[in-house]
């Protein structure tokens, strides 16, 4: 940073809003409008902070952005100009720096809200472009959503060269309101090039001490800390703070000991508080060494890159027809399920590749990244050979990911190293270049060293690179297996992390799982740190867990023991009818094996699956079983249908047609819709699930593209009924020839009739009956 930062502890100003709120003459106005309506009051507050000893003052512009200021009588430019001018006047000839204060939009970002990432970026970009020549730096503060502050940081970094401080607010649980820990905030903000990350607002200073220590464990950058003066008390319509200035100042000292470099105050503090803190300005600033090792994260999960991790490989359409089809149909639900399955199976992070012919990979990788992050908190490894796709996905990724991959080729390094530097990501580095894959260990190491040197020149430490020793099929040259193992050993001597894509080794040979498993153990003993493999392959995972236990990578064998701890014994059956009736998921493989030896698929469906489902349905209606049991049966039946379909896709003609399902625009409740989906699939229907919060146009497009058997719309809230009504109306206007079925907590038979829907389904079983009658 900047020359702004000295070798001593520095002092920020305190609250502006607290003082304005307490002033009855002005507290009914938007605080930012006061820059123009009561400039002398704002100037006086700034001056009081300068006189108190603050070395940085922040402009009165917390809400001065296009989204938040849209109802003001003044233009954004007027407000910003006035805010900056007042702070400049207060700073006068002193060395006090004027930082433009930027706060959150107050809106909720996608996927929970309507505000798009790029819209948020543009909002802040407008502010930065207008102010970049007028202030000494920027301070983003009181953000509680990592995604929103990401957009704001990019807006500042891409549109100005000024110093940037960025602070987030945490609740008493030690997380931001959207669930990010101090480590994740420190990592992400540092990775994005923020000069001074930190914490503001939140809670009392004493509660921030452990949070500062946790941030300090991740970043060596200076930290800005501006706590509230205790907890707010709401009384007589106004907020007050109970902590004394003296206590606040005492704990500020503790915050400095814990690692804070610049201190100031937030809600409840005043110039008097800051004046008492001025004594800390003479303290020397501790220097912190760069943190050893490297971390990646999602918005809620931190992961240190080290030996013993598993990268899940299943989100890659190569050779996977279902995944290819799902990507072509934008059926991201399938990807989400695959992601969650790998997480449950023990993957620590997930490779994501969406490269399919005739698709816009840039757009697809961005959408897939967002969709997976909606439901799965594992960090991602963004995988593409297209630098534009990598760049676009890095931008919208919420956290710090790995990219897959860079290599020794000049053009690749030129395209991707700047992206790695900008977003602070890690990368898989392939030991190949434009000449191809070297057939010697030395050749591969030469490339690895070249990559390390080129990365270092961009400020990228080698601990952010995971070197791929490259596995090729031993069926084409038996020497290849040993070559990979030797390369792994040599790479480890260079002190870098290693990976391989395991399954290539067995290509073209029988019993590939056996070869993969054997090679995995050989590679692990040769120095493989992080295999990229299929975590649903239980034997591979068992081998890995055993290796980690035996090699010491699993401290106290904790994971190994936990994996082998006895699980509860459930009721078992080998009768498919009984398995479906009782929803015995664990017994399904056994029951399917047995019944497939006895019956043809059609017979199984007619004599076992459908009768069992009918029986469950009757019991449900008689209230002998309840919703969880009904769903369990449907989930088991759905799996049975899927297995039958995969095995006998040519023989069976039991697909009942396609049903499109959507939760309407404005509504994000989708459990009800998901229940209908499972029950439909359990009865053999194909379902195109458009998800929740679905625009009318998307439903129309699904109709035009797929001509489904029926369209099902769901709404849980009274306020989203008009949105459902609008979608039904639009379908009728385009003379859609398929029936529209509506349901959901607030929908009734008469409402359905009023909006022109063809059918009302009170529950999933009613939907089945309606479809059977079509």
């Amino acid at each position, binding site marked *: 940073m900047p020359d702004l930062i000295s070798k001593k502890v520095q002092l920020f100003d305190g609250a502006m809003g607290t003082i304005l709120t307490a002033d009855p003459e002005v507290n009914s106005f938007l605080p930012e409008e006061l820059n123009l309506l009561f400039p002398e009051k704002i100037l006086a507050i700034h001056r009081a902070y300068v006189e108190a000893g603050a070395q940085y003052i922040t402009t009165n512009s917390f809400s001065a952005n296009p989204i938040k200021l849209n109802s003001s009588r003044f233009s954004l430019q007027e407000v910003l100009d006035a805010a900056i001018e007042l702070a400049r006047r207060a700073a006068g000839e002193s060395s006090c720096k004027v930082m433009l204060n930027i706060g959150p939009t107050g809106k909720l970002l996608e996927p929970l809200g309507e505000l798009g990432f790029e819209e948020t970026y543009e909002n802040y970009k407008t502010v930065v472009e207008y102010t970049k020549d007028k202030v000494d730096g920027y301070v983003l503060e009181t953000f509680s959503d990592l995604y929103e502050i990401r957009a704001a940081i990019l807006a500042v970094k891409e549109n100005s060269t000024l110093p940037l401080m960025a602070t987030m607010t945490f609740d008493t649980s030690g997380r931001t309101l959207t669930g990010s820990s101090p480590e994740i905030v420190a990592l992400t903000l540092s990775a994005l090039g923020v000069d001074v990350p930190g914490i503001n607002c939140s809670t009392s200073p004493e509660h921030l001490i452990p949070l500062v220590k946790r941030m300090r464990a991740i970043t060596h950058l200076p930290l800005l800390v501006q706590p509230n003066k205790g907890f707010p008390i*709401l009384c*007589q319509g106004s907020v007050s703070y109970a902590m004394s200035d003296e206590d606040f100042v005492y704990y500020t000292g503790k915050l400095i000991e814990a690692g804070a470099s610049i201190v100031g105050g937030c809600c409840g503090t005043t110039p008097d508080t800051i004046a008492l803190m001025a004594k800390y300005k003479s303290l020397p600033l501790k220097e912190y060494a760069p943190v050893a090792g490297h971390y990646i994260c999602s918005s809620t999960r931190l992961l240190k890159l080290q030996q013993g991790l598993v990268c899940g490989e299943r989100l890659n359409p190569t050779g996977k027809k279902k995944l290819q089809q799902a990507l072509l149909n934008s059926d991201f639900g399938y990807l989400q399920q695959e992601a969650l399955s790998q997480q449950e199976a023990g993957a620590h992070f997930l490779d994501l590749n969406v490269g399919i012919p005739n698709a816009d990979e840039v757009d697809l990788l961005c959408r897939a990244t967002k969709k997976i992050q909606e439901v799965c908190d594992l960090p991602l490894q963004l995988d593409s050979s297209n630098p534009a796709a990598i760049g676009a996905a890095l931008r919208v990724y919420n956290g710090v990911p790995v990219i897959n991959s860079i290599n020794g080729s000049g053009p690749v390094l030129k395209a991707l190293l700047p992206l790695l530097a900008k977003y602070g990501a890690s990368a898989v580095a392939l030991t190949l270049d434009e000449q191809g894959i070297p057939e010697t260990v030395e050749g591969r190491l030469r490339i690895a060293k070249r990559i390390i040197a080129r990365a270092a020149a961009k400020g990228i430490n080698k601990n952010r690179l995971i070197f791929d020793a490259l596995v090729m099929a031993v069926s084409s040259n038996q020497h290849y297996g040993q070559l990979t193992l030797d390369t792994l050993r040599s790479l480890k001597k260079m002190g870098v992390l290693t990976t391989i894509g395991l399954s290539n080794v067995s290509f073209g040979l029988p019993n590939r799982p056996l070869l993969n498993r054997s090679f995995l153990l050989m590679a692990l003993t040769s120095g493989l740190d992080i295999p990229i493999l299929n975590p649903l392959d239980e034997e591979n995972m068992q081998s890995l867990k055993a290796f980690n236990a035996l090699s010491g990578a699993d401290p106290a064998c904790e994971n190994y023991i936990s994996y082998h701890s006895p699980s509860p014994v459930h009721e078992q059956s080998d009768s498919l009818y009984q398995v479906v009736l009782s929803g015995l998921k664990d017994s399904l493989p056994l029951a399917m094996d047995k019944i497939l030896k006895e019956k043809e698929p059609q017979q199984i469906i007619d004599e076992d699956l459908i009768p069992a489902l009918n029986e469950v349905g009757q019991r449900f209606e008689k209230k002998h079983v309840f*919703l969880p049991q009904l*769903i369990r049966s449907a989930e088991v039946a759905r799996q049975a249908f899927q297995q039958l379909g995969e095995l006998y896709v040519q023989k069976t003609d039991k697909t009942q047609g396609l049903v499109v399902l959507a939760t309407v625009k*404005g509504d994000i409740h989708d459990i009800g819709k*998901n229940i209908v989906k499972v029950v439909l699939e359990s009865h053999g229907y194909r379902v195109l699930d458009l998800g929740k919060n679905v625009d009318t146009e998307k439903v129309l497009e699904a109709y035009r593209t797929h001509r489904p058997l029926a369209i099902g719309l769901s709404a849980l809230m009274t306020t989203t009924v008009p949105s459902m009504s609008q979608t039904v109306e639009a379908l009728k206007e385009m003379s859609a020839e398929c029936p529209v079925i509506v349901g959901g907590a607030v929908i009734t038979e008469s409402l359905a009739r009023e909006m022109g829907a063809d059918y009302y389904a009170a529950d999933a079983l009613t939907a089945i009956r309606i479809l059977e009658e079509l």
Partner: protein
Amino acid sequence: MCVPVSLLRNNALTYLGYSDSDLDEQTQEALHSALTHIAEWSAYKQIYTRLKDLPEAPAFLQQESYVGLQGKLDTALLFAATLGLGIDRRIQSLSLNRLSEAVVLNAVANAYLETRVELFIGETLPGGVLFCPGYAGTSPEGNRSVLKLLNAQKHLGIYLKDSGLMIPEKSMAGIVVAGYSFSCRACSIRSKCDHLRQGKTCYGKPAPHREESRNAKADNIKA
């Protein structure tokens, strides 16, 4: 504040319709697992203020639907609470590949939030009920006023979308009032109300009129 597990469990079972029936082994396990998820993923927070401490009464309370409240407002509280986003995320993830567990967790989360709120009310305003705007025929717009007056976005992280949906979903906002029962007659989901069918209201009290509860049952049979 500790929530008695038996109370929570019973409230959750009511949501799932199990009140008079024996639980099967798998649902028992799902319930147990849901309680673990609640402990791990939920972060209960609340904020409240006495209505009389506000400079003036919120405008929505002047609407006709609230006319019966006049005279009861001296002790009333404006209140909001949430379980945070973590539990929403967990329910959503489970609903993709373990739907039956998601349904159970959803019910337990609802029950947990309501139970926490009931315990708070029991301690702070005995005999009070939390009435949430949007129910019993009132306008859901009242939520906007409640959340704004409490600055619930800043203190609790509750956002109110244009559609009226609160994020996090497991959030409640409204007015806690003692000595008054809201009528369910005007409620738009009265015919499908699980609470009413069981002789209760969504705000945790016995149905104010036996007839309402009988009518709800009759409506349900017709549907």
